[in-house]
């Protein structure tokens, strides 16, 4: 298996306090790595550390983030611009806050595509239409002229995924992508991720607090607790032979 993302001994601090403590993780090509943990365990901080979008009070004190063997922490800002949103794409929790409310959906596609490719308007429109069709959104032509507030949360989340599809990202970092959605939309979005993974061989880092999401989609699982990875396993081993007491507690919280 090809390693796409490797996090080695990563520590993030705010002041003197450890927010993340020596995190080690590996995500493989075409696989979904699920990261599960309760609120406040540092899951989102980890995503931001990988994307280097940490809040200004936080800093990486040690460790490496390797994307295809290249340490992202040493990459120049200009090069990062080419990576971020081109190869590494982030899907955020709150779709209604992630869009520019005075831009149409087509505007969002144009802006994203322009940042990385030289294309004509017509080409951009075609790519956008294809991407919207891939995420099973109805009436893509009309949709392009809509503003974000005219779409539901579930639709916006699929538009966000379509944006990543349009630039053919190879690593998706999805931070609680379905938490703000109802169960039916959640199922659709997860099915979509599964489809993207099998069609494009993309790697997905799926951050969630929901065991159901892990059971549905993940191939490997890492458990975060108080800023540390306390257990990492294949998804079947994770459910069948949990090691850490916290993992056991987590599994007991399932309702059925």
């Amino acid at each position: 298996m090809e390693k796409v993302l490797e996090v080695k001994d990563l520590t993030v601090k705010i002041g003197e306090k450890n927010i993340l403590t020596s995190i080690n993780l590996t995500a493989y090509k075409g696989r979904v790595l699920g990261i599960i943990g309760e609120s406040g365990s540092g899951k989102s901080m980890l995503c931001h550390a990988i994307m280097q979008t940490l809040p200004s009070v936080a800093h990486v004190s040690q460790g490496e983030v390797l994307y295809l063997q290249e340490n992202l922490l040493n990459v120049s800002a200009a090069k990062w611009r080419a990576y971020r949103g081109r190869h590494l794409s982030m899907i955020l929790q709150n779709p209604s806050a992630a869009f520019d409310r005075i831009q149409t959906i087509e505007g969002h596609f144009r802006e994203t595509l322009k940042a990385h490719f030289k294309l004509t308007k017509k080409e951009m429109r075609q790519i956008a239409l294809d991407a919207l069709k891939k995420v099973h959104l109805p009436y893509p032509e009309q949709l392009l002229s809509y503003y974000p507030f005219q779409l539901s949360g579930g639709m916006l989340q699929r538009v966000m995924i379509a944006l990543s599809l349009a630039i053919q990202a190879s690593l998706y970092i999805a931070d609680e992508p379905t938490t703000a959605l109802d169960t039916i939309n959640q199922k659709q979005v997860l099915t979509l991720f599964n489809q993207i993974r099998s069609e494009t061989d993309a790697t997905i880092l799926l951050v969630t607090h929901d065991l159901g999401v892990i059971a549905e989609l993940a191939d490997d699982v890492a458990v975060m607790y108080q800023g540390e990875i306390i257990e990492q396993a294949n998804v079947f081993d994770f459910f069948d032979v949990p090691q850490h007491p916290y993992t056991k507690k987590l599994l007991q919280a399932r309702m059925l």
Partner: protein
Amino acid sequence: MTLLDVKNIDMHYAQRTALFQRGAKIPILQKVTFSLQEGECLGIVGQSGSGKSTLGRIILGIERPTNGEIFFQGINLYESTSKHIKIIRRDLQAVFQNSYHSFNPKQTIFEILEEPFLNFEHFSKLERRQKVRELLDCVELEWAMAQNYPSQLSGGQQQRVNIARALALKPKLIVLDEAISSLDMILQKTIIELLQSLQKELQLSYIFISHDLQATRFMSDRILVMQHGQLVEEIGKDGTYQHPASQELHNAILPSHPRERKKKDRPN
């Protein structure tokens, strides 16, 4: 005994097409009828936009329906005088999804929990203190927390304060509108267990509104399924259903183990 009787509720919003111009009426609820027994937990499930929350707000008296009647303990909520309503108000409480926005951020937890008593009871300062202490006890929070502000509490703690506030006046019915949806799994389970033990202890009735069929099943005696503003089906104790809307909600339940992945995708 019947606690709540909802009869033929219709709700329309007028769509505004241009400034000062009223457009077509959009039906949000159509002919919604059901009743709730004392001590019962009734689940209401449906996709977002199906009208669940509007129904909840109408039951709480926050929004007036276009047509229809609601009787709470035999009193018509929308025809009684405000004096009557005030008596009902204390028996009818709510817990909403966004726990933080349900508080005044400038009040301490003590002030938040004291407020129902200031509005409805004539307690001395000492008595109020005692009551707030009991409430915090009831939802398993420390007394020391009373001095904190909502922003200093975690989501789960905030939701417990919300429940405590709803319990303050010993209500008969609590409307739980997506009350556990924003919590993580361990907290969801804790809060559900808390709600269930409180229900037994205080003979409460609940209306549990959620988009999550699994959690609703766990919590409720009966489940009403909503779609496009209408009640389409009642799922009883045996858990059988026929309507496509129920089927869709059922299909959306995520597996509890990766082995069940494929099986779930097939119908039934």
